[in-house]
């Protein structure tokens, strides 16, 4: 029993880290622009396709040499992060920016539209003829992501708890990224500008902050985090699918809301909480009830704390 609990704890932690990384992208954009960037999950998905394509092009698989693997992995991470960041930035410039002054519904609906376009692109991408895409020629089928890390148990083959190198990678890399983000937001000039803009965009503008640049940086950083998360997620799960952005985006957004949207530590807390709940509900209730359990918890939390766990209730100015 204890082994099961510990194992699920580990799985939950790992999943939660990925959720948290994606949730950060949602929460940062929400904090500044106050709208749900529905397309964020699909940026995550397309970044995974970039990594997959790169793996295919480089011919990386579990039999490659350790050096090639390390180099390839690094390249994948960099390429996906850059791709995710730039794609997110591009979407903002092309679609959201002209709508900054429109009613709140407009950017939200546009984001849903963009999300659908990206999903469709993912579907077509999956239909491309490439050797590395496992799972048959079907465009909509999940693609196998090569198992780049050894599947050995770090705790020894006899241990009842499995801790694989990829678990360590996910947790370690996520912690590094979150610390880096925290550092940026807390200590750099850009971070200060971001916090100021989140609090009051027009006041920030009056103080000489280039709000446009701050928004661009936010989208860039959020997208890059999503791209980064997509690589470690694909490594962890070993499949890439054109709808994975929707599923994980939904969970990540839920995590952001649970933690208090717009609140960066809240997103991490929400992600971890959701990851843990998911792991335990999969173990003790049944994987098929996963979404029901997660959204049930979301509703309960919002009833008792309408602004999320760490969010503060904003007072309307009268």
């Amino acid at each position, binding site marked *: 029993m204890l082994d099961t609990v510990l194992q699920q704890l580990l799985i939950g932690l790992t999943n939660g880290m990925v959720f948290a990384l994606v949730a950060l992208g949602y929460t940062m954009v*929400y904090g500044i622009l*106050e*709208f*749900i960037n529905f397309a964020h999950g699909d940026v995550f998905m397309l970044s995974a396709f970039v990594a997959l394509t790169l793996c295919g092009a480089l011919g990386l698989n579990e039999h490659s040499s350790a050096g090639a693997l390390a180099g390839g992995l690094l390249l994948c991470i960099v390429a996906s992060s850059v791709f995710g960041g730039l794609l997110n930035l591009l979407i903002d410039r092309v*679609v959201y920016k*002209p*709508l900054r*002054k*429109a*009613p*709140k*519904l*407009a*950017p*939200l*609906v*546009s984001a*849903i*539209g*963009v*999300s*659908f*376009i990206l*999903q*469709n*692109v993912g*579907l*077509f991408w*999956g*239909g491309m003829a490439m050797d590395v895409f496992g799972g048959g020629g079907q*465009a*909509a089928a999940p693609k196998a992501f090569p198992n780049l890390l050894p599947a050995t148990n770090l705790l020894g083959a006899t241990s009842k708890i499995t801790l694989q190198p990829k678990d360590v990678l996910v947790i370690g890399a996520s912690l590094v990224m979150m610390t880096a983000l925290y550092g940026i937001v807390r200590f750099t000039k850009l971070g200060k500008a971001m916090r100021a803009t989140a609090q009051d965009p027009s006041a920030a503008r009056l103080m000489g902050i280039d709000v446009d640049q701050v928004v661009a940086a936010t989208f860039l950083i959020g997208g890059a985090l999503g791209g980064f998360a997509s690589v470690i997620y694909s490594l962890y799960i070993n499949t890439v699918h054109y709808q994975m952005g*929707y599923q994980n985006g*939904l969970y990540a*957004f*839920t995590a952001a*809301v649970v933690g208090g*949207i717009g609140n960066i530590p809240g997103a991490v807390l929400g992600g971890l909480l959701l990851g843990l709940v998911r792991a335990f509900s999969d173990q003790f209730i049944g994987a*098929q*009830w*996963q*979404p*029901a359990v*997660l*959204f*049930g918890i*979301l*509703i309960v939390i*919002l*009833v008792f704390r*309408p602004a999320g766990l760490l969010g503060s209730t904003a007072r*309307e100015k*009268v």
Partner: protein
Amino acid sequence: MAELRTFLKKIGGLPVLALVLLAVYPFAPVLDWGLEAATGQALHIDRQLVNIFIFSLLALALNLQVGQAGLLQLGIAAFFAIGAFTTGVLTVEKYPFQIGFWGAMLIAPLFGAMGGFLLGAPTLRLRGDYLAIVTLGFGEVMRIVLLNLENITDGPRGLNPVPAPWLPTLVRESLSPAGDASIGVLRAMYFLALIVLAATVVCLSLLEKSRIGRAFVALREDELAASCMGIEPARIKLAAFTGGAALAGLAGCFYATNLTTTAEPNTYDFNYSIMVLCCLIIGGLGSLRGALLGAGLLLGFDNVISPLLTRLLQTALGGESTHVMASFSNWRWIVFGTALVVMMRLRPEGLWPSSRVAEELHETQEDAS
């Protein structure tokens, strides 16, 4: 019924003309004849029209929630599914109830309303975006629940066959030419859906001009000021949400009956909800006529234009291409997505908006800039 008379005077001849045209169409499907002569293929526009009527009901339901009450609801498919599966359980042979279409038509909206109330009561006080995510989640949960409760819903197979509505012999026979029962059933569904749709449109437009309609506008414009004037935002919103859910349940009942099956639960996914939202956005959020137009356009694209384009594409590529891009139905999300983005940018009030909503949207833009 003085208000009805003034109402008729106000709306003018167009809706009445449309109603009359639609009422006689099944007996003289001119468009079908024309298209059949031109393309050599039967398109069965009357069949598509039934789908459009049912989809319009659903769009009107969502319009009540999103367009009128301003609640961002992204899970309308859940209530549609509740209606369909309630109808399924109440009518299929497997279960002892078997109350038939007429009974189900009364009970399905009740269950839809119940679902709406249960979801709405604790969550409608939340801010707009939170509500969006809660309703989205509820849509997912409902789909998962229907899929998992296999004993009840038959899981991925869905409940079937849902029987056709029982009709008196006289009506049945007069609707079926030369004793062809299937045409009789189709026509029965056609007229039933048309009547219910027309009644719904009348009720909703009366509602729009009523006390509650005024409260909707006031809440959309300035919730705080409205609540300081004694309007209870939570109560009005809950009423709109429950009402919309009931209407969606009714649409679900028609859907299942028309399809003769509840269809598999995965039909009622997030994409379905967004498709309904999409047709509101295209037609004009908060506008009854816009919702109808949007429903017609969207289903028209899916069922008429898309297959036509696919055929053209296949001919151009020379024969049967199995590539994912060669079938136009695989492009539909790009088309819908682009439509949403472009509409929001160029014409946020929709193609055929109500005048009030158009003013609201434009005013905000002018004020802000």
